[in-house]
């Protein structure tokens, strides 16, 4: 890495890594609040898919993960969710490592939405959303008023109340993703992880879905392909390349012509935000036609 973004990244890592500025033994691990990953790594087939990522999104904010295919976004999310165990490093919730917290306790406060999870089982939308209550329920116990309320609020929040008793299979792609978000909300999470939830959606549904996600009162980590959408909806962006954190900062700091050329190998024009409500925007350019050789 050759330019200033690298500096920004280093500064932030130093800032975020627990105890990085402190003398050894002076103060052991001040617990970061919320979700945090400390130098997590994952290996598959002798290759490091995720290589020493540290992050700690501020509670209530949205952290975007961007990077080319195979840069490790999905794997990082699976590590953060505790579905994969890291080969090195640790993921913590309020300072407690996920394995110590246990699957059930983790599921009571951290929810995951995949890119397009589907099922052959015949379920109504309400039943899909009620799946989110599983970590809160005991075997043989009936539905509690808290379960009812959580399902109702989740349906309401995602505008699916009038579809509640329809079959899941009758929903459109956008509605299915909303139903997954409703199921995640029924888990009553404080952290929400999303893996490219807008894939296969048209632009209106992409914007609707991201507006919904941005309005949720939770800490969000979201993998996105579209740089403009990431710039619009994320408070901070972490750029991954070959499993490493390449840059980290606000959209305006991170999304630059140099970075896009370096990470994606494509040419782009980046327009800075015009005012406080605007965001940095990207226009991709065609590769110039190849000149016939001399």
């Amino acid at each position, binding site marked *: 890495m050759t330019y200033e973004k690298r500096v920004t990244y280093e500064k932030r890592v130093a800032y975020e890594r627990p105890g990085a500025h402190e003398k050894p033994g002076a103060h052991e691990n001040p617990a970061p609040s919320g979700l945090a990953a400390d130098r997590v790594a994952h290996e598959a087939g002798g290759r490091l898919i995720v290589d020493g990522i540290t992050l700690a999104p501020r509670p209530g904010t949205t952290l975007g993960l961007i990077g080319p295919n195979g840069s490790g976004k999905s794997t990082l999310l*699976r590590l953060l*969710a*505790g*579905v994969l165990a890291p080969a090195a490093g640790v993921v913590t919730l309020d300072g407690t490592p996920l394995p110590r917290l246990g*699957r*059930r*306790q*983790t*599921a*009571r406060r*951290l*929810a*995951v939405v*995949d890119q397009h*999870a*589907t*099922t*052959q*089982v*015949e*379920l*109504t939308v*309400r*039943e*899909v959303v009620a*799946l*989110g209550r*599983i*970590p809160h*329920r005991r*075997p*043989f116990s*009936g*539905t509690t008023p808290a379960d*009812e309320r959580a*399902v*109702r609020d989740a349906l*309401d929040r995602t505008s699916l*109340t*009038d579809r*509640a*008793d329809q*079959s899941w*299979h*009758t929903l459109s792609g956008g509605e299915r993703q909303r139903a997954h978000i409703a199921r995640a909300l029924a*888990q009553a999470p404080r952290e929400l992880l999303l893996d490219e939830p807008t894939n296969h959606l048209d632009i209106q549904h992409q914007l609707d879905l991201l507006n919904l996600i941005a309005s949720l009162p939770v800490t969000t980590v979201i993998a996105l392909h579209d740089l403009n959408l990431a710039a619009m909806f994320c408070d901070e962006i972490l750029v991954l390349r070959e499993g490493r954190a390449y840059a980290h900062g606000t959209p305006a700091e991170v999304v630059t012509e140099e970075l896009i050329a370096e990470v994606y190998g494509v040419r782009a024009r980046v327009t800075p935000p015009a005012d406080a409500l605007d965001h940095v925007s990207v226009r991709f350019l065609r590769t110039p036609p190849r000149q016939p050789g001399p």
Partner: protein
Amino acid sequence: MSGAAGGGGAHRLRSALRGGLLTLAGLAVLFLSVAVAVTIGPADISVPDVWSAVAAHLGWGEAELTPIRDGIVWNLRMPRTVLAAVCGAGLAVCGAVLQSLLRNPLADPFVLGVSSGASTGAVAVVVLGVGGGVLTVSAGAFIGAVVSFALVLLLSHTLGDTTDRVVLSGVAAMQLFSALTSFVVLTAADAETTRGVLFWLLGSLSGAAWTDVWTCGAVLVVVLTVCLLHARTLDAFAFGQDAAATLGVHVGRVRVLLLCTTALLTAALVSSAGAIGFVGLALPHAARAVVGAGHPRLLPVTALAGAVFLIWVDTLARTVLDPQEVPVGVVTSLIGVPAFVAVLYRTRRSR
């Protein structure tokens, strides 16, 4: 909003009530089916006769029947009917659990290779005389089932441990053991033995004794309890293993536990009654069409439906060609397939 809220609550309450009522009604139908099915057959016996015989044996009253009629009720028809109920319930529940766990609507209790392993074990005892007369057919079948299931677990673990690898390993084991069974039968058995073995392979309750009932019944109670304890966990598998994991499920642990318990139950049932096909595949689908896919309700209803179904199918199998008997596995499919197609047709999706 409050209207919708009330609607949701009432909906839940109604469906919970319906599930409870359905289970109660199912239990009533089950007891009635046992009582009536026992009266059907060449010897003329009435429902009150059945009651008095059962009451006498449970020590609630005086014996009113002649010893022969009492013997027909208590030693022949009763164990057979109860074993039919146990087998039907067990196979149907195993099918429902495996279909959800493996996310495969084609899964049935025999998908893990248990039945073909059992067949090979039984054939080894009957035809080859393995065990030197010490091993009974049932014991041989049980050992074969366990060996085959262990092979499937080992294979699927080696091959990558995903659900489709489990199913494919099961198919491989099934092919291997049925080839072994055919090979042994065709090379070593005479015509009479072949006929006997074939009868057993197709599933038959004709040899039912109380010891079978107690063994299978005990395993059924244990396995049913384990499955009911994991009913919600099975719901969580609807969107796959990763989704289940993020809903707080210990996927690996639950999968091994449920695979092993269902295999154990299947092995116990197959060693007593042979490989009765179709019940485990079709009954869960039929039950889903009635009560939906939620396992807390689906599992008890599936168990009851399987029990009642197999009682009547077996009654038909032993009376329709009287005095000859048709293997129950043949009748389950002959009756089950049209019913199954009807269920699938009714629940087809119009998209």
